[in-house]
């Protein structure tokens, strides 16, 4: 039964990435928290397939930053969700875009970007985290985003009864991967080919891919990093950007395009291919075969939308978080009060006489 006391909240986003491979992942997370802050989406799960504590720690630091941990002023945007970490991911290295921001200290010598991940058990078991996130969503009110190798989502598919759950709760999976209609092997697919094949074969909802060509055609401008993020003297995404490559440079934005499509799929930012089926070749290339019954599509860039896309990228990713009022403060308070009142009334009730309680029948 779904509790009927509230209207549906904004769509819930399950975000899994290989955080650390490209600055694109950090920008995508910033964009996602930007949409969260605008009440256009809710981040309900964050996990990483890079088996490195710094990858999870960076994600948590960004989440806390948007929750106001740096200067304590932002309030409701972002949450201190546990971050899932793959223990058997195919990519494991720590990269400068992770180590750079995490190494920064305050004048007092404390980490500038606070996080609570110092050992493996500070992170969450990924299949349980993602499955549990879906269980608490209204039907068809969540979207899965994959901005990295498919390692984690493939493992989620091994859980019992999970495909029915995903079918019920999740509209579609948006992922960064492949190259369309043809192209070279793409990093996310090539990093874990068995997982990608499993995902394409078994994921129960439609899958929408943003191929390499999309991110390449929509460079995130370095000027935005210098200008639009300046509201904060310290920003974990800016510091990651600067640590990733010598400035100035424009960044690929494949993961950002995936986030944008997921949250605004109906707003015409991208065109979609016909449906079809994607196969993964042995060298990591993707092969799309059109088919009316196919569940896979890929994004097609409409040149007329390019300026509009870059504009929303820069505006939302760099947006300063603002305190967000509870959606239903009065209703939630009333429900809590009713619950306590009901309990008080019950506590005053006379207990049932023992004669009314039948002991269980002897089992032998």
């Amino acid at each position: 039964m779904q509790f009927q006391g509230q209207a549906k909240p904004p769509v819930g986003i399950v975000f899994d990435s290989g955080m650390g491979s490209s600055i694109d992942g950090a920008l995508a997370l910033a964009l996602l928290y930007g949409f969260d802050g605008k009440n256009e989406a809710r981040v309900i799960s964050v996990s990483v397939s890079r088996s490195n504590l710094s990858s999870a720690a960076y994600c948590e630091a960004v989440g806390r930053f948007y929750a106001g941990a740096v200067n304590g002023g932002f309030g409701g945007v972002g949450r201190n969700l546990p971050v899932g970490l793959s223990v058997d991911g195919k990519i494991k290295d720590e990269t400068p875009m992770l180590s750079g921001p995490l190494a920064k200290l305050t004048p007092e010598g404390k980490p500038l970007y606070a996080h609570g991940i110092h050992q493996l058990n500070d992170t969450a078991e990924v299949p349980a985290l993602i499955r549990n996130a879906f269980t608490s969503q209204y039907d068809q009110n969540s979207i899965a985003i994959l901005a990295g190798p498919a390692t984690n989502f493939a493992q989620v598919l091994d859980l019992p009864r999970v495909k029915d759950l995903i079918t019920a709760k999740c509209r579609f999976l948006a992922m960064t991967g492949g190259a369309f209609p043809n192209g070279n092997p793409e990093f996310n697919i090539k990093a874990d080919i068995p997982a990608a094949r499993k995902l394409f074969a078994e994921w129960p909802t439609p899958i929408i891919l943003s191929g390499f060509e999309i991110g390449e055609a929509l460079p995130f401008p370095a000027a935005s990093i210098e200008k639009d993020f300046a509201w904060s003297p310290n920003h974990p995404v800016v510091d990651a950007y600067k640590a990733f490559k010598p400035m100035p440079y424009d960044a690929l934005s494949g993961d950002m395009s995936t986030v944008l499509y997921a949250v605004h799929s109906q707003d015409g930012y991208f065109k979609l291919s016909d449906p079809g089926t994607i196969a993964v070749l042995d060298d990591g290339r993707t092969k799309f075969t059109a088919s009316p019954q196919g569940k896979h599509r890929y994004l097609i860039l409409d040149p007329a939308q390019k300026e509009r896309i870059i504009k929303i990228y820069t505006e939302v990713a760099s947006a300063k978080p603002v305190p967000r009022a509870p959606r239903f403060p009065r209703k939630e308070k009333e429900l809590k009060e009713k619950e306590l009142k009901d309990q008080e009334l019950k506590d005053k009730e006379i207990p049932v006489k023992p004669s009314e309680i039948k002991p269980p029948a002897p089992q032998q």
Partner: protein
Amino acid sequence: MITGKSLARRTFLRGIGTTIALPFLDAMTPAMAATTTKAPVRMGFVYVPNGMDVRNWNLDYEGKLGELSRIMKPLEPFKEDVLVLGNLTHNNGRALLDGPGDHGRCCGSYLTGMQPRKTMVDIKAGISCDQIVANQIGNKTRFPSLELGLEDARQAGDCDSGYSCAYTNNLAWRSETQPLPPVLDPRALFERLFGNGIALSPEARARQSKYRRSILDFVTSDTKKLEINLGPTDKRKLEEYLSSIRSIERQLEKAEKDNAQIDPKMPKPYGVPADFAEHFKLMTDMLTVALQADLTRVFTFLVTREGTSRAYRELEIPDGHHPLTHHQNKPELMEKVSRINTYHVKQFAGWIEKLKSIQEGDGTLLDNCMIVYGAGLTDGNKHNHEDLPTLLAGHGGNNYIKTGRRINYRKETPMSNLFLSMMDRMDVHGEHFGDSTGRLDGLNLS
């Protein structure tokens, strides 16, 4: 003289209306057998309600147990026999869009691992892990399982925001729609264990008690015959065992006498001691005998019902337990919650001491048990369901569970993983249970 013959494990002392199973004796091990008879492994769950004051439950370290937290302190003498588990989660105790009712959900999901249906009528949860095991191995013992409790509680009606009392007042579920209510009355349990299984009415029992002798008197003849064939160690074990049964009888008689003097009309099951600690001890004493005599290998013990507002006047706490847990971080209320939590652990520690004192084979009865002690809510004030207060007592037979440690698992690790691993240890193997994602690593270090 050494012979290849041994005493059958299922030997009973019989008398009129009485059947007393025997504990595990050396004589039950064939002297020249190629393999020795192993004591069975027992599995049980002791559940305390309303979460805990986690400030005083949690340990801030992992690995070998050092100083225990305030609430666990009564277990200090037995810390080499317990394993403290951190970060286990019951996702199906969470609201999952079903709104208020964490008490109903957390108890209904605790051993089932399933999301209970929010209803007061057509209840549905899942078959609990104890009953899955009982179904598989219950034919080896007189009782497939025992369900015990201490608090009088109804089985129908609304006990939490639209959740049936069947969820808050039961731990064991025989099927997804059939909970097994706990036995609350010590006399009823005694008669179930040692009588013919029929609980007498208070009036009939009163008539009988006028002429009552100890049940041991009815089995004197069998006892004497048995003793002839026992060695000195077994004779001592038998004497201690029968003495413990006699002790239980005396406790029962005292409780019944006290109750009659206090208030003969009180709506409390006949024979329930007025004192919580006495009641706890009496029930666990009988449970000990049941485990010792292999009457059952599976049990659940709902210390008090979930959401209870029982007052603990013996601790000079007149406030209800449940309202206290909504303490809003007021120190004076939190202090009372901690004292109640500690009081529960103290009773549990007393029972652990008893289990550890009973020799069984080369070890103790506790060595062959694995008993979960825990709550279905983490913090009664927050109503959260992650990092549930949980410890495992006993070694699960053959020194399987490496105790004396604290393990902090990864966040969101399902509690069902622990139960799946325990079921394995009971030789009941399933692919998954509840919302499990796999087995729980680290219980055994080898």
